[in-house]
């Protein structure tokens, strides 16, 4: 599921990977809203009953950016394979509950501001859109789906100086991340 502006933002990645699983595009941030996603990548395990059994975990399927974030993909992929085969690694409900993050009034207002900004952008009302992108940033300073995800829409480079300034503030973490082995010993 890609949190991007349009198909063309991710076409290249999807066509190259040619996945056999569904690969969808979420231009309206529907899943970001429903699951309270604050940064990507994040992976969520959902069991056969449709219940979340391992909450948001910022992990990677490849080692392309390992030099940047220090994470290896293999330990996570090993855990994932074990879960698929045996169910091992699924967490009890109280642990899932303790390891997820909660939306609050400010984060929900930030999502409304972003939705308004995105709508205005779609109407070619860039100046009005910018007012609300700024407001969304202020309300949710540690939500990168808003702050970094809006950069391409606002003509900023999400891999440029503005991103590195944002990264200086510290990247948003999911509690699960600290508990997942990321290096092979």
């Amino acid at each position, binding site marked *: *599921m*890609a*949190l*991007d502006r349009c198909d063309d*933002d*991710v*076409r290249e*990645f*999807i066509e190259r990977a040619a996945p056999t699983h*569904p*690969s*969808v*595009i*979420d231009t*309206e941030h*529907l*899943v970001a*809203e*429903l*699951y309270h*996603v604050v940064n*990507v*990548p*994040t*992976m*969520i*395990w*959902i*069991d*056969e*009953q*449709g*219940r*979340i059994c391992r909450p948001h975990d910022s992990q990677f*399927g490849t080692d392309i950016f390992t030099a940047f974030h220090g994470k290896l993909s293999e330990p996570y992929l090993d855990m994932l394979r074990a*879960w698929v085969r045996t169910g091992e690694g699924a967490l009890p*409900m109280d642990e899932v*509950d303790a390891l997820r993050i*909660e*939306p*609050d*009034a400010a*984060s*929900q*207002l930030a*999502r*409304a*501001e972003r*939705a*308004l900004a995105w709508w*205005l952008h779609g109407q070619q*009302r860039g100046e009005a859109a910018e007012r*609300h992108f700024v*407001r*969304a940033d202020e309300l949710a300073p540690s939500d990168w*789906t808003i702050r*970094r995800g809006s950069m*391409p829409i606002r003509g900023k480079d*999400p*891999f440029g100086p503005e991103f590195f300034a944002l990264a200086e503030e510290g990247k948003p973490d999911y509690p699960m991340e600290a508990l997942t082995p990321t290096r092979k010993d």
Partner: protein
Amino acid sequence: MSASAEVFRLIDDGQEVSLAAEVRDGRVLIDPDSLKSGLGWELKPEGLCKDAACVPVRDREALVPSAEDAGVDLAAFASALGRPLALDPAARVAALGVAAGERAAQLWTLEAPDFELPDLDGQLHRLSQHRGKKVLLVAYASW
């Protein structure tokens, strides 16, 4: 409602609705008939009501600042429902979001919220189509 009521766009939890409203001093006053037909809400003596459910109103004057035209103040309406509102009176558009408490209560159940989104070919995929199998939900982006 006065003759100056014009179209006002409201993005209601992602759904775009057209309402008749007047913008006056930065306030958006929605025509009561439009509030009913567009959003299903109506102001009654017992409170703000939608179908059989009513929400009590603390400050009726904030909700209806002028009895003359009985326009319902959009910001006060959102506040009465406890829902976040991003408002741009000049652009005549607003986004009404989901209350933090409602979202939190849904997430607390640990049931994966269902959604339907398109792939590159425009084909829609719904999460609940995969019930009975394990699902890895990966959120990523080009940025």
